[in-house]
């Protein structure tokens, strides 16, 4: 089934904070399939860019338009933050929260939550307070909580930035499974290996501007702009 969300059309969208442009103006069209990886140096505006697409950063100019109406669009998206936000509840409590918000009866929500926890390997920890989880487990819980509503698009803001190799691999496995099941991913990362493993297309941000946007193979084999080339080579781009 094709999601009614797409295509997403971003037209001249700009986010400002106290007069300073954080990101934009951005022009972009996003289609329904694939995994978009957002890369760029620190402060390039990756987080603001993702927040802007998700609709939790106020637009100063331009528009971000989904193919369906705004309320439905919001209910079909999820966001995973760089620092996972753990609610002061058990793992189960965290997982059923979005379902309860959607009006699902508690008992039914618990059934879904148990499956979702099993999917990310947290099934033995359902009753544990979420704050007692390790960093990798927290991020897995945040991911499971974001995926439990079966969103059409999932935004991830450097989800693996403080995780070790094994946890990163587990997260990537979950992401690829979600992607195969029809969730479009838009994810920022600093890990070029991860970008190569996951990306179908790449957005390169620099100083708040969308510098380059290309299919992954094309981008990694030969970026068309100098800053992107320098960034891929591991040079410091400012």
């Amino acid at each position, binding site marked *: 089934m094709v999601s009614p969300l797409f295509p997403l059309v971003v037209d001249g969208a700009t986010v400002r904070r106290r007069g300073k442009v954080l990101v934009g103006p951005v022009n972009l069209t996003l289609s329904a399939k694939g995994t978009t990886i957002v890369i760029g140096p620190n402060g390039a505006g990756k987080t603001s860019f993702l927040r802007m697409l998700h609709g*939790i950063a106020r637009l100063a100019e331009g528009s971000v338009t989904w193919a369906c109406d705004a309320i439905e669009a919001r209910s079909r998206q999820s*966001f995973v933050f760089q620092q996972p*936000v753990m609610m*002061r*509840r058990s793992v189960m409590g965290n997982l059923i*929260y979005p379902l309860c*918000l959607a009006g699902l009866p508690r008992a039914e929500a618990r059934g879904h939550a148990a499956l979702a926890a099993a999917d990310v390997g947290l099934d033995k920890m359902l009753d544990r307070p979420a704050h*007692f989880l390790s960093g990798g487990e927290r991020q897995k819980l945040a991911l499971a909580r974001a995926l439990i509503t079966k969103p059409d698009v999932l935004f991830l803001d450097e989800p693996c930035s403080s995780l070790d190799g094994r946890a990163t691999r587990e997260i990537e496995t979950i992401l690829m499974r979600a992607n195969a099941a029809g969730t479009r991913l838009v994810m920022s990362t600093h890990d070029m290996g991860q970008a190569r493993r996951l990306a179908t297309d790449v957005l390169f941000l620099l100083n708040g501007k969308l510098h380059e946007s290309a299919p992954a193979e094309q981008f990694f084999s030969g970026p068309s702009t100098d800053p992107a080339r320098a960034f891929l080579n591991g040079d410091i781009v400012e």
Partner: protein
Amino acid sequence: MFEIWDGLAQAFWLVITLDSDLVEITLRSLHVTLSALVFASILALPLGALLAVRRFRARRITIAVLNALMGLPPVVVGLIVYVFLSRSGPFGVFGLLFTPTAMIIAQVIIILPLIASIAHQSLRELWSDYHDLLISMNTTQRQRIAALLWDGRRALMTASLAGFGRAIGEVGGIMIVGGNIDHHTRVLTTAIALETGKGDFALALGLGFVLISLAIAVNLAIHIIGRTEQEGRW
């Protein structure tokens, strides 16, 4: 020093023999203060949460006023409630002056700003944790407040206990609106004031020790029910 020991002995005997007057005024103290606590909490905790999640024009000034009112002088509150409830006042027809209800009203007014202010302080921190997530999940304001109140319940218990502490030891306000009438509106604090005035220090001290024990017992009971010491940091 003699009075202290005598007071302890009195307190001991009053409790051991379950002195009927003591039981009566202790229960009235609990009734007045716990009722005031329940009503004040029902109003103040959601107010604290609302101030945390909602940005409106008068927010800062509301918080500043609330903080200032934490130190509201009970005697003045008592006086104002007295004026409102007295026969010639706007609510005189209800005949509430010199009843436990009047005492509850005064105490609600005294502790409400304190509970709301402490609740707001702790929920503000929780909200800064939750802000992005709950906005991302597209929650309504009511759902945000509900999530804060539920997940911040331990911190809110502290806010309520602070209110309880202020109310159970309060004497000025309830003395004025209650009138310290025997078998009707006499509570532990007003009885202590009376016995001290009469010069019966031992009895006053005895009642004082009962009051302190009561405050500790209620605090402990609430902590045990809330299991604060067993489930980590919230």
